[in-house]
């Protein structure tokens, strides 16, 4: 009766990390509980119906869940909660999707009233066809994703036993010469492959591309990779050529500029969601080959139309990759139901402890507005307020001081507002990469930064994701997209690649005191704070003092 776990009546689980049984407990509850927060002392997990159903799908039963809770719990577990777990888990598997030899895809039920209940739902009716017998109903094959999503919302998740198509075979091997997949990457690949489809959550810089490559080597089939932008597409290609048996010619790029379809094709979300005359002309890409695997990079950014296409792809294996599965639009559950449940998740600090990402020092620099700025801020229109405080002149001085302090290291200055960045670029005498910078120019500048020709780079939000800049050790954020939690995490991710000399990375967020900039900053930091990154707060005056 002195376990590390406290089971709360609101279905959160509090895990005391310093407890000797904490690791065992973490392993026991990980299959069914979502890690919600991982600060220094107590990690918070949450029991959700989705998590419990995923656990059922992975072969765990209610008794195991209850046993794990009861075994590690410090206090008696509320009975109502145990009953609720058993009831929730019992809802899974009453309905199954399977292949019928003559009727194709069918929905079968072991519990007739449940089938009656869901067939009565107006949302299910258009997705199903004829009733073969009292327990079986035909499902239109194209609606496999839709019906799964709908049933999930109705609270009767279907077990999908219809399997996957193998896709067109294509030989892909990992070229492990002088390197090897890290243990957690292997676990992630195995977890994904075992589950069929799903999402792998790894911190920025922890090598998600290699997890993708590992999955491809498992599938040994033609693969479609969806990424956020062209630069990222090139990086994927580069990395795949380097790490696998694939050659340049086998990998195609499908973007605004090139339209290559090869055994492995890397496409951008942007080109897929380009709409002309009310239709999406590039959608046929999904059907252009018999893909055996579809990889979604940065799945937290998955645009809404792609959700819809993905629903039609349920027969193909899908792998989602992300560092921060927090969507400000709250569509996390759509990601889970359409791409698949979370198959692997590692707290950032744990990967840091293993030395695969650099330790980071996160600092919030508070600057005071001058009196005239305060007045201007107070009189600004509501929608202009953030811009006003985020681009205050004092921030420039602080940024200059920081750049000077870390002279000789590779520094990224990241911001939201172009004129602010231009001004900073001018003052710091550093090149600026923004939306209008052509791709060729961007790559040139990134290369120069990697090789150390330039040591300071001012970037807009185009560099938020998937830009691999291993040498960057200092990031200075002067403004951001309001309170976006994942943006903050992604920006920190820019400096988390392990450094060759193993030294610390620095992340500075410059914030105007007593303004909404400060409120947004607090919100932005929440994800990282919950991942265990404790921000230090310093006053601008300290930095500016000689």
């Amino acid at each position, binding site marked *: 009766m002195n376990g590390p776990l406290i089971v709360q009546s609101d279905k959160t689980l509090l895990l005391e990390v310093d407890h000797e049984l904490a690791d065992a407990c973490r392993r026991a509850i990980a299959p069914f509980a979502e890690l919600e927060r991982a600060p220094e*002392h107590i990690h918070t997990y949450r029991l959700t119906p989705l998590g419990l159903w995923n656990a059922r799908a992975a072969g765990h039963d209610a008794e195991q869940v209850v046993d794990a809770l009861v075994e590690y719990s410090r206090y008696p577990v*509320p009975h109502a909660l145990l009953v609720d777990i058993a009831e929730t888990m019992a809802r899974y598997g009453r309905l199954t999707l399977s292949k019928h030899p003559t009727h194709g895809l069918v929905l079968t039920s072991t519990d007739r009233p449940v089938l009656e209940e869901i067939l009565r739902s107006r949302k299910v009716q258009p997705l199903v066809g004829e009733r073969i017998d009292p327990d079986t109903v035909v499902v239109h094959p194209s609606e496999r994703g839709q019906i799964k999503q709908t049933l999930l919302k109705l609270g009767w998740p279907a077990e999908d036993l219809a399997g996957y198509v193998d896709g067109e075979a294509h030989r892909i091997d990992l070229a492990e010469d002088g390197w090897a997949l890290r243990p957690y990457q292997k676990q992630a690949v195995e977890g994904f492959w075992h589950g069929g489809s799903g999402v792998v959550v790894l911190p920025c810089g922890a090598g998600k591309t290699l997890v993708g490559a590992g999955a491809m080597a498992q599938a040994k089939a033609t693969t479609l990779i969806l990424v956020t932008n062209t630069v990222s597409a090139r990086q994927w290609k580069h990395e795949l050529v380097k790490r696998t048996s694939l050659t340049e010619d086998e990998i195609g790029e499908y973007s605004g500029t090139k339209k290559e379809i090869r055994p492995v094709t890397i496409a951008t979300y942007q080109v897929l969601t380009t709409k002309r005359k009310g239709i999406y002309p590039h959608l046929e890409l999904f059907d252009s080959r018999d893909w055996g695997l579809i990889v979604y990079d940065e799945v937290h950014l998955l645009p809404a139309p792609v959700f819809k296409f993905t629903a039609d792809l349920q027969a193909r294996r899908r792998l989602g990759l992300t560092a921060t599965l927090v969507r400000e639009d709250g569509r996390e559950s759509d990601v889970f139901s359409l791409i698949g449940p979370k198959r692997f998740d590692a707290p950032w600090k744990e990967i840091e402890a293993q030395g695969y990402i650099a330790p980071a020092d996160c600092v919030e620099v508070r600057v005071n507005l001058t009196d005239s700025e305060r007045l201007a801020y107070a009189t600004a229109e509501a929608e202009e307020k953030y811009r006003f405080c985020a681009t205050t002149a004092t921030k420039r001085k602080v940024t200059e001081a920081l750049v000077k302090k870390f002279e000789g290291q590779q520094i990224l200055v990241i911001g939201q507002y172009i004129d602010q960045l231009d001004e900073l670029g001018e003052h710091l005498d550093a090149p600026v990469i923004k939306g209008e910078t052509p791709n060729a120019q961007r790559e040139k500048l990134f290369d120069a930064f990697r090789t150390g020709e330039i040591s300071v780079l001012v970037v807009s939000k185009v560099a938020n994701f998937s830009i691999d800049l291993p040498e960057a050790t200092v990031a200075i954020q002067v403004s951001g997209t309001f309170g976006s939690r994942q943006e903050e995490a992604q920006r920190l991710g820019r400096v988390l690649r392990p450094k060759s000399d193993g030294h610390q990375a620095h992340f500075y967020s410059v914030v105007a005191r007593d303004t909404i900039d400060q409120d947004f900053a607090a919100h932005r930091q929440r994800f990282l704070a919950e991942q265990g990154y404790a921000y230090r707060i310093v006053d601008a005056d300290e930095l500016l003092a000689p």
Partner: protein
Amino acid sequence: MGIGELDREAHVPEVTGAATAPRTLAEALRARGDEGLAALLRARPDLLSPVPNDLTQLATRAGTRGSVVRALERLDRFALQTAEALAVAQDPAPYPVLLGLLTGDEGDAEIEAALPAAVELLREQALVWGEDDRLRLVRTARELLAPSAQHPSPTGLGPTVAEATSGMSPGRVQEIIAAAGLPTTHDPVSAVAALTALFTDRDRMGSLLDTASPDALSVLDRLVWGPPYGEVTAKPAAPVQWLRDHGLLLPVSPRTMVLPREVALHLRGGRAHRAPEPVAPVPGVLREYRPQVVDSAAAGQAQLALATVEELLKSWDRGGPQVLRAGGMSVRDLKRTASALDVSEETAAFWLELCYGAGLLASDGEADERYAPTPAYDDWLDLPPAERWALLVTPWLTATRTPGLVGGQDAKGRTLSVLGPDLDRSPAPEVRHRVLGLLATLPPGSSAEPESLFARLRWERPLRGASAAEEGGDLRSRLARWALAEAELLGLTGRGALSGPARALLNLPLAEAASAGALGGGVEPSVAAGRAATLLAPLLPEAVDHVLLQADLTAVAPGPLRRPLADALAVLADVESKGGATVYRFTPGSVRRALDSGQTATDLHAFLKAHARTPVPQPLAYLIDDVARRHGHLRVGAASAYVRCDDDTVLDEILADRRSSSLGLRRLAPTVLAAQTDPSGLLDGLRSMGYAPAAESTTGDVLITRADAYRTGARTAPVPVPDGPPAPDTTLLGAAVRAIRAGDRAATAVRKEPAAAPTAAGALPRTSAAETLATVQAAAMTGSAVWIGYVNAEGGASQRVIAPVRVEGGFVTAYDHTADEVRTYPLHRITGVAELADDQV
């Protein structure tokens, strides 16, 4: 029947022979030992109030309808079946006949084993008297249980041949006799006797039925297990015709036929009941857990119960919801409470009633009536958790209020509201005790199969609540269902099995156990509660005095916090998650609240440092300093509202801000603004603009807002409404038995002079109440007239000659010869009664 035979049950016989068999119930009672009388009074405590004068009066009272109904309702199924069987047998019935009615011709070992106990029980309760060769059911019980057209018997039997043919023409009887092949006789009485003899003779009856057509047999089949009445057309079909001709069906009206009791019994093989249930169903074990698992689950639930009660009453600290005019709480307030507690409305109603029953909340009795915690709640809060728990469950055990009814409707279609009137259900405590008692009979750690529990409860009290039609829907089953659910919520059971502390608690008064306890050495309720609390205490988590602070601005208390700490922290931070531990989140708003309550930033830092087991994270320290820096920076006066600030830029800011326009601000001085709005509106306005102003008193001090606790005046908890009088204790029983004995001796002592004969006309007859009742009852049976003295409502005395028709509920309904109409007289107004001389009628 003559009077002498009728008043046997009550009347004092002229001669008492100890050796001979008792001839009346009173005699039978007199023959009992004191222990036997005490047993009767214990089982039927209603006979004790008031204490009867003598055994005759006791016997009379034991024969009244109300008391007999009460006693019958408390019989278990087999005893009731035994009584029902006696009611269909001739009176008196010898034991073998009774046994035959229950077992049928084949016999049944279980019934044979169970019957003596059932008869003994009926005898003890004075429902049956007489030796085994002459068992008599008391008359009222016989009337209640014997089949009649209006009240079909549970046995499904019809009237006897004698009863069914009583109105029939002698000619018709002759025809039947002839059809049955019996020797004709002109005497109708012997004709009926011959027919009865034929129907009760298995062999002759068998050969008679052999001649019946299959159709006729199938008609009999349909009537045999009841109801025994069937509709016929004016010209019935051949099989029915044949049955009617042979007297196997007898007419009760031109269109209705009845199957005589003797025929039905023959067809049933002699059994009065289709399914006698001599053995109580045993509650089945659903699952077995280790007792430790059960205790810990129950303790967890007990902890949750305490937390819920505290949360509920804390939220009413500044006054709870309004009391409806008809009493109780509105549905909307109940919904609100339920969502605040994050439970269903049924559960919320339970917690509310629990608090009310424990005297922790009550209406404040003000003009604008509202619910609020009582002073007892404050005392309760100061107790250790286990004792707090005991104080919740002890009143629950005896409470008659049933929260399960909330949301339902009463007989008049009004919705029953929580804490409102009409929620008392007298059987509730008894059912609760039985449910827990039955759980206690299972091996430790076992949870019971609920349906088997309910079946057992129905067996124990088949008549009570039987009015509700569907199975399981009757009040007792519903009460039992609620009792199970509530016991789980309270942590008396864990995973459905009775916990250790609950077992200790159950040494408590329930109708039987208290009296058994009083005689056998049980313990006082408070002692049992204390024992239960002692057992529970080590199972509850120990209170902690520290929290863990984290950089994401949360604090986690890894267990229940000690009280002052919990209160202080609840001001400084918002509660985010509750349960075994508590998660608090610090926000600017919560820190401001703490500052508003009069603390300074330094106090807060010191407080956190003192109670945190971890270093105070820098973001938290900054948060407090940030809020404190701005807290009170702006000051708002009350006079007609002003804003004052040493920093005139801030005032510039405010004045420049468009959002301030609604506040009607005007600059008074470089550092002072005046406002048109009232101070509180101004405070809100400024806060919404992102400032942290502080209110100022007229003398310029900062006003401190701190939470007050709102209480009712001293209130007592509601008194349970038990069913009938309380169970008598030993002292009362002893005294009562002695008093009855003494009275009886006085009444039965052989007097020198015979009782005075009815006085001559002019004086009112005077008789004792018992004698009046017995005489009037006897007259009602025989339809004879009596002479009564009567005092009307104005006190005027008169003498009347009446022919009693019915004696019921303290009233005599009678044909009044004097007034020549049917009137009703309250028995207590009748001063006395005298039989009329024969020539007077």
